[in-house]
């Protein structure tokens, strides 16, 4: 029974991992830019939730939406204001640009909020659900379900809508996309906006059950990189499955081996998979 509960907890956590990793896979796998500020986008999403709750008395729906909007704008701005200008440069200049952005976001947050850990009240999204003996905390249940829905929604957007098709076209062949009359810059900005919005929502959801600090993004970014590498660069379904997998493995190893080992197991598995299948478990698209 406890095992089932641990696995359920892992799946719900994994769903949130999947959501913020989708953002990373979108701009890494499709737009070919490694966003080192990705973890800090999640962190900003958490602080937006904290601020809206603390100063504007907003509930979960308000702060999740606010986080989506703020991070959409931050994503678009990161592309148009920064990344666009270094795209034609070397890989190193791209890396340094987003790495610089990460540092600015992180230390600006330190400066404004100090390094104190913050958190939202635990009963913000009512208590615990008892499913025939399996106890599921409501914040994690809500976060997990919303995250799965949004990840599937993002996949649907990419594969079933005209705008998604145009996004994929730009990532497949930028010049051919231009021959269709598509403006690659706009699509790139949109991809960054979407990635930001998904990441912001994930951050706001995580904030309902996780501590908030300026450096929390570091831990989460590592998870996102592992999920993207496992799921295959650019694959949203891959990120979903890999996210769920990582969530379950983390929770299971925390339960079976002890909490200190959960990250070690994940990274060991990560290295093993990259060794055997460098293209990730699911490959591209």
């Amino acid at each position: 029974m406890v095992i089932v509960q641990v696995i359920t907890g892992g799946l719900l956590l994994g769903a949130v991992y999947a959501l913020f990793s989708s953002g990373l896979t979108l701009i890494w796998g499709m737009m070919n830019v490694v966003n080192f500020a990705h973890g800090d986008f999640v962190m900003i999403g958490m602080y937006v939730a904290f601020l809206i709750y603390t100063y504007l008395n907003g509930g979960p729906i308000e702060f999740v939406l606010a986080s989506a909007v703020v991070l959409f704008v931050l994503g678009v701005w990161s592309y148009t204001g920064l990344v666009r200008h270094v795209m034609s440069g070397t890989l190193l200049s791209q890396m340094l640009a987003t790495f610089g952005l990460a540092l600015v976001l992180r230390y600006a947050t330190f400066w404004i909020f100090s390094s104190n850990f913050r958190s939202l009240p635990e009963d913000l999204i009512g208590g615990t659900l008892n499913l025939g003996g399996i106890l599921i905390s409501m914040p994690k249940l809500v976060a997990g379900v919303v995250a799965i829905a949004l990840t599937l929604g993002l996949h649907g957007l990419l594969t079933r809508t005209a705008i998604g098709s145009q996004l994929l076209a730009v990532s497949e062949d930028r010049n051919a996309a231009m021959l269709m009359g598509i403006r690659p810059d706009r699509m790139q900005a949109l991809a960054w906006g979407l990635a930001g919005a998904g990441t912001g929502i994930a951050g706001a959801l995580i904030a309902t059950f996780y501590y908030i600090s300026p450096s929390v993004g570091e831990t989460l970014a590592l998870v996102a990189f592992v999920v993207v590498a496992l799921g295959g660069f650019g694959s949203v379904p891959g990120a979903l499955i890999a996210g769920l997998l990582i969530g379950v493995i983390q929770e299971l190893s925390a339960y079976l081996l002890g909490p200190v080992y959960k990250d070690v197991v994940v990274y060991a598995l990560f290295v093993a998979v990259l060794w055997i299948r460098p293209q990730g478990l699911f490959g591209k698209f």
Partner: protein
Amino acid sequence: MTDRLRVTNLEVRYGDLVGVADVSFEVAEGSVVALLGSNGAGKTTTLNAIAGLVKPSRGTIEWRGEDIGRLPAYAIVPKGLALSPEGWRLFVGQTVEQNLRLGTATVRDKARVPALLDRVYTTFPRLAERRKQRAGTLSGGERQMLAMGRALMSEPRLLLLDEPSLGLAPAIVDTLYETLERLHQDGLTLLLAEQSVSLALEVADHAYVLQTGRTVLDGPAEALQHDAQVQEIYLGTKTKPVMEH
């Protein structure tokens, strides 16, 4: 205002290399014009410059009296020009129908899309059969049809075709050229780059011959069919295997 394309003293550079050095020609509304020339003569560079994929370093490209030479590719399509590029450049990860719909990115009235799809499927029934298949699974002939169909989806007034016969079986090439004739009869203006001279001269009204980046000769297609200089330019390349991607 008539749909006239006029290219004057076009020069395109790839860094230090010269893609085309001095190309001038005209395409009148309703005509079929062929750009002939062996491999490396500058046909693709010329078409890509018109479509906005490469920038001219000298010369002008005028369409309906407007200089479009410095516009980016995405701004060219809405002006009524579409390119079916060399190597097709399909979105191989997406379906046939998605590729065709991508061709309508600049069509403002989205209600027209089903009719445009229908028209392409009527022109190329093979594409209708394969509509749900990924473009990456198509044969060479089908890929050429899809590249042409996709270009037609933007309702161009001038269709630019880069070597539609390249690497395809003769029977498929015949079908494609019949389709081109029909599109022309329906009022479409065509600019066609070809290495395959006899084929191009059959459909073209007028042809220009390119040699190492320069227009060296032009005339009515019928006259060029019997021209000794044309034969000479091509004799050296005729037996060369046509493999270029």
